[in-house]
């Protein structure tokens, strides 16, 4: 559903309508609104994912810290052609140690977001491929993804690309 082709494309060729590069400090202002869109989408799936009032300030902090952190990967997606300098998506991931399991290093995709018009011609696939490569370069031997359990679009997206559920996080209010 979300990955549907649209007629408002920027070109005829079949390559993804985006290109990727590592995020810089200067990208934070452009990435924050996208990160908030993703969090607000997550809020649709579960009331325990209610977006905080100060989420915008938090997003700025977290992004700055992760861009500086060698154990994190933040990539930005930019458009093609006339939209070459427009930030249209991003992915945020961390390398985590697994003290009890092998392999011991895991790359966790925390956020992945593309504006709806750019979700086509393999853009999501491309984003996933690039972030996986970056995590591998930082020593991760497996890649995992976190998203709301009710997000069936995400379930399908990852399942199609060889992901399977390994651990579950269940919650209740206290």
């Amino acid at each position, binding site marked *: *559903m979300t990955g549907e082709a*649209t007629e408002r494309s920027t070109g005829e060729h079949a390559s993804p309508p985006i290109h990727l590069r590592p995020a810089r400090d200067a990208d934070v202002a452009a990435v924050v609104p996208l990160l908030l869109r993703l969090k607000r989408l997550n809020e649709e799936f579960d009331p325990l994912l209610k977006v905080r009032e100060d989420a915008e300030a938090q997003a700025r902090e977290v992004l700055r810290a992760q861009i500086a952190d060698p154990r994190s990967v933040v990539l930005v997606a930019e458009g093609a052609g006339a939209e070459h300098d427009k930030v249209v998506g991003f992915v945020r991931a961390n390398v985590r140690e697994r003290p009890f399991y092998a392999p011991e290093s895991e790359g966790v995709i925390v956020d992945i977001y593309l*504006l*709806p*018009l750019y979700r086509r011609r393999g853009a999501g696939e491309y984003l996933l491929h690039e972030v996986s490569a970056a995590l591998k370069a930082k020593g991760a031997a497996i890649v995992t993804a976190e998203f709301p359990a009710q997000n069936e679009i995400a379930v399908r997206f990852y399942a199609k690309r060889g992901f399977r559920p390994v651990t579950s996080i269940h919650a209740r209010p206290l």
Partner: protein
Amino acid sequence: MAESAPAPSPPARDPRRRASRSAEAAAGRRREDQTEQLGQRAVELSRYYAGKIETVPKVPVRSLHDFSLWYTPGVAAVSKAIHAEPDLAFELTGRWNTVAIVTDGSRVLGLGDIGPRAALPVMEGKALLFKFLGGVDAVPIPIGVASPDAFLSTVEAIAPAFGGINLEDIASPKCFDILERLAKRLEIPVWHDDQLGTAAATVAGLLNALRTTGREMREARTVLLGAGAANLATARLLLALGHDPHRLSLVDHRGILDAERDDVDELSIRHPWKYRLALQTNGGGRTGDLARAVDGADVVIAASTPVPGTLRPEHVRAMAPRPIVFALANPVPEIWPDLAKAAGAAVVATGRSDFENQVNNSLVFPAVFRGVLDARARSVPDEIVLAAARELARGAELKGVGPHHILPTMEEAEVFPSVAAAVADAAVAAGVARRRRSHDEFLERARTLMARPARLVRALGRSHLTAPMPRGPVGRRRSA
């Protein structure tokens, strides 16, 4: 159906706006009074006649012996025949001409979620229209269930009795989901009049409005104000007719619907039909309110919640020269026709019968059902809806197409059998017809079947089987 309030008289000259405002207010009050009087009368008459429809035998009954043919034992052979060949139900029973009018009562007229019981008078009225205009036997079936799934399985369960399903007064967006899923599951046409009937009438009117103002669909820039059932279906039909998606914009209470509007992700989950249009339309990514959307537009089609003044003269003035304005909210259009005209509109249409150019789904649904039933269609794909719209537009030519006549009126009855025949032809062409006939045969059949109910009603009246319409107040229950 018809409201007979007079059109507000056009303001003479400046100070035009003030004069027109007070005239508008007075006309508005008159209309409210009139609507209230009509309502009171409708309640009285509903009590007097105790409902609007009844079932009537269509076979002779010479004596009770005939029931050995119409009922047991003879009828068993008819059942066996259908059991052996299910499609024979369309030959041997009234299924070929019977539709169910189903609703959950979740969005009845402008009244909102009043539930299935209170929806019944509206469904009875619709059944009357089906019969009177289309010669179709329609059964009102309000359904008291809570979930779309339960609604779906109920309709699926009753489908064997019917040749078609008419969904009525179901809230958006669940109406889209229900229509899509039912159409997939059932082997008979499923129609949601609030989407398809209104959209087909709108498109028919627009085809002629474009022609009469010398425009091409391909080049028109169109704004759809309101993103409910009707306008989303209209958008889909316009795109199917070759309207440039980049030059089409939808506007809802949050402003222009755009692929980057911040509720688009939510729409992808809650309302995929609107989401798809958000991605397809509004090329160039205009953002903002209605004023931004209409700037330079050729056409505005307003089908929103009826709040007068939603569309203002300055909006019309900001459009391209000689624009087309459809203000379809009922009972109060988004802008009164005289105001739209004074602001430069070349063609104005409303949903009301007391103004010229009434966009009325009664122009469409009786003929569509006549057509799909006569072809015993399995479904109503969009090409059938478009065939109906095109033929309806052509039908207006009989009396000459112009700014004051872009659609036939309900009185131009000769148009409707032609629409029915065009629908039946389209069903054959689309490969969904169980029965193929020539155009002339479909036309002849539609003429006969659509003319019969008026004769029937007259005959029942002449023979005093229906009581004459009482003059003056009727307080007491009919004793008959």
